[in-house]
């Protein structure tokens, strides 16, 4: 792992500068800041994305995800800090020639056909027409000659993905690419992303669909209130083992009483949908935990070590930073 394994503490001098990190990374940001009038969108972002990875960028709504992507694509001008994309300045023609982008809020001219849109973008990129291949890739080959105005939202999103891949870019930014897709569409996009990674393309994926990110991204960063609060390999961020105990429906209030009985050295347990999750339990502690639950009169149907889901890791990261997050997770 080349990048910092844990987020550097605020003001840490160890973070690499954009200039020093250069060439091998697809994206390097150092102390990147953005103010919109009097609101702070990015409060000094340090980020490094290696080439050839599918990079997941997570964060709650309004955390600054889209602002960062817009700076990296040259749409928004940063207020301060350093940033380098594919070894160049974001927004320059040389960088744009090697980049693809699907914005979160996009709209294509409704009076063009899907095929015409892809040809338009191919001409702007200065590459030959590749509409047939791309339409097939995203499963729109049958609809290519229909006007975009007749497309469903999901079809427009598929077309948006095809548009982002015009010119076989080295780096693709996808801002919420699956928000309008049904489960089949999501699986298709996941397969496409995996295929792109296998071909060496770098994918920067903004998403709040955590299960998607967990399945396709090999590295990720979490942003909150304009700062990156965690970044690293997906497996590293999810390594906290958790013990899940299926106990069935609990009467209201019962969980809090039981939680008080558990060994106090453990991290606070959570309860959802008939399963109690206990993070940070070592194998040797399992019998004691089970005994406590059984003694409390709970039926124990299943006990398993589960890798923490990204959702749980995400909630844990944001706990304390947002008063509402903990309550939402339990509900």
């Amino acid at each position, binding site marked *: 792992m080349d990048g910092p394994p844990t987020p550097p503490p605020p003001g840490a001098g160890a973070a690499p500068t954009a200039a020093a990190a250069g060439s091998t990374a697809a994206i390097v940001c150092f102390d990147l800041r953005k103010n*919109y009038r009097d609101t702070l969108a990015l409060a000094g972002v340090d980020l490094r994305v290696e080439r050839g990875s599918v990079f997941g960028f997570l964060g709650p709504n309004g955390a600054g995800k889209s602002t960062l992507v817009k700076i990296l694509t040259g749409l928004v001008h940063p207020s301060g800090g350093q940033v380098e994309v594919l070894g160049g300045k974001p927004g320059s023609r040389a960088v*744009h*020639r090697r980049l693809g982008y699907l*914005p979160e809020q996009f709209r*294509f001219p409704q009076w063009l056909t899907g095929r015409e849109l892809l040809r338009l*973008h191919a*001409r*702007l*990129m200065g590459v030959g027409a590749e509409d047939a291949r791309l339409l097939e890739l995203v499963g729109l080959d049958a609809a290519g000659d229909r006007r975009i105005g007749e497309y469903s939202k999901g079809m427009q999103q598929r077309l948006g993905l095809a548009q982002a891949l015009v010119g076989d870019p080295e780096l693709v930014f996808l801002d919420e690419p699956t928000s309008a897709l049904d489960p089949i569409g999501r699986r298709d996009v996941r397969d496409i992303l995996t295929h792109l990674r296998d071909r060496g393309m770098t994918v920067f994926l903004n998403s709040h669909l955590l299960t998607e990110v967990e399945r396709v991204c090999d590295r990720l960063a979490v942003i909150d209130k304009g700062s990156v609060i965690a970044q690293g390999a997906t497996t590293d961020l999810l390594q906290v083992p958790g013990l899940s105990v299926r106990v069935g429906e609990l009467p209201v209030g019962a969980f809090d009483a039981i939680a008080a009985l558990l060994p106090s050295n453990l991290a606070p347990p959570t309860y959802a949908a008939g399963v109690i999750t206990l993070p940070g339990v070592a194998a040797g502690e399992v019998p004691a935990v089970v005994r406590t639950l059984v003694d409390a009169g709970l039926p124990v149907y299943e006990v398993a070590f589960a890798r923490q889901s990204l959702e749980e890791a995400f909630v844990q990261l944001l706990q304390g930073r947002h008063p509402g997050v903990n309550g939402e997770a339990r509900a």
Partner: protein
Amino acid sequence: MSRSGRLDDLRTRADQVLLLAGLTWKEGVRRRTILMGFLLTVAFVALYGTGTYYAFRQFDVQPDTTSMGGVGALGMALDPDFYRDLAAYQMLSFGLFVSSFLSAMLVVFLGAGMISGDAENGTLQTIVTRPVARVQVLMGRFLGYASVLVVYTIVLSGSLLLLTRVFSGYAPPHPEQALLLLLAQGLIVLGIVALATSTLPQIATGITGLMLFGVAFIGGIVEQIGTFLGNDTAAAIGDAVHYLAPTDTFFRMALGRLTPGSMALVGEFLTGPFGAPKGVETGALLYGLLYLAACLVGAALLFRRRDL
């Protein structure tokens, strides 16, 4: 970069600009705005033509010269076609005022979304992240609408000039120059719109474009009245307004290219509600061109700095 490399690069950039300009026409055809605009223009021209035809078919009746006093007698003495020419000119000035107003409306409505509308609805973001400079995008959009304006103005105002010529028999001295000045007027409106749309929201751009056009028109009337009454202050105010937006100046210079020489003696009678004709002045021409250039340079600078 080698010389041929630079030339290739320039050609690529020009191709991209033309590609974006062509989209304006494609959109017009696909969304049937061009068809509807054409049909309604035909209706307007047909109405104008019918009016002109009937007005001048019965024009062989000579008006009572005594009721018009000395001026009428003077006119009759100068030119036997004096009344025909006066009526034809008035008709034309009215028709051209409407057509130039329609051109301005067209430009404002189409152009207001040029940058801000497309930025607001998310069309622009995938275009400007391609290897095209923002100034190319602006140029492509501007050229697209400018070409629509040129075709529209030539078809509409050109038809009015032609119909008046055919039905009244009056031949204005410089119709082609008048047409060029009307085109310049429309392009200045488009320049204002381009500048506004680069930084203001779509609605605000539309309002700015129409208001400036209206203010310039009123400024023209204030100046006209001031001159007529010999009120220097009013004339100066009206004149100053023309620096804010020189559209009315260009319209009046266009009218000036359409008045026959014999009418110079009775200039005040040509002062209709649509503006008094004005001679072509190099200063005014130059100011208009600089104004347009400044609008476009300003638009390019603002668009470059804009967060999308």
